[in-house]
């Protein structure tokens, strides 16, 4: 793994996960809502800021369509995919340790 990456915010994690398929802003909002079964609601302002930051970082990129189109679509890049994979590894560690310690304590 390259340099250690901090924990992704829930919003960023779900946005990246959504963009494994090309999607526009509203599509991302709906997809995140469905993925989390209504638990995570993404505000348009939060999403807009996250999209711009992720574009700057090169974790997502505009997808097809003429430039200046109102409903722009985006897709994840290989760097973005690596970031999600690193986050999944980090979350798995939390999960494993959490379960092991709590279950161990119960016995």
């Amino acid at each position, binding site marked *: 793994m390259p340099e250690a990456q901090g924990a992704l*915010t*829930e*919003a960023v994690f779900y946005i990246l996960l959504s963009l494994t398929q090309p999607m*526009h*802003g*509203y599509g991302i*909002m709906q997809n995140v*809502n469905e993925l989390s079964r209504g638990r*995570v*609601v*993404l*505000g*348009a*302002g*939060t*999403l*807009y*800021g*996250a999209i711009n930051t992720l574009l700057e970082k090169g974790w997502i990129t505009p997808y097809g369509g003429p430039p200046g189109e*109102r*409903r722009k679509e985006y897709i994840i890049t290989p760097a973005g995919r690596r970031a999600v994979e690193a986050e999944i590894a980090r979350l798995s560690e939390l999960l494993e340790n959490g379960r092991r310690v709590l279950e161990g304590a119960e016995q």
Partner: protein
Amino acid sequence: MKHVVFKAYWNYEKEEQWLNSMSAQGLALTDYFWVRYVFEDSEPGEYIYRIQFLEKLAKHPQSRKYIDFVESTGAECVATYLHWAYFRKKAADDPFELYTDIPSIIRHYRMIRAFWAPLALLEYVAGILNIIAGVTPPVSPVNIVLGALVTLLGVGFTLMIVNVTKKIRTLKKKQLIVEA
């Protein structure tokens, strides 16, 4: 039917609450300019309103782009005034919030503070200079009154900044433990 209400707010969050309580009574904001609010009849509670501070003036391309984006998510921008945008969305849709995690809420508050702090300072300087000019002979009551009013405006801005700063501090504390 149109209803025009004149009202002034220092605190945009209180203003937002007021707009939502008006909407709950069936009065939906359709236009705003300075202290003038225009409402139209609607179903009670039909819309949820959110007020947003924009980094650039509402007419600036950067702000237009953002407003377009918000509108593409099913919200409607009913009015803009200087750096403020007034959005609404049907209450029947998902809960309507523009900012849904702590970092973005803090960023919005910081933007507001960065904009108003220099203005507050400017009002104080202008106010004090006017008062000094007013009390040095020949005494000029016009300058004194003007100075007092401008200083008062500075106090108003300061209250707004203090309010936002308190909110940022609370959120930063919360952020030490949880994310959203």
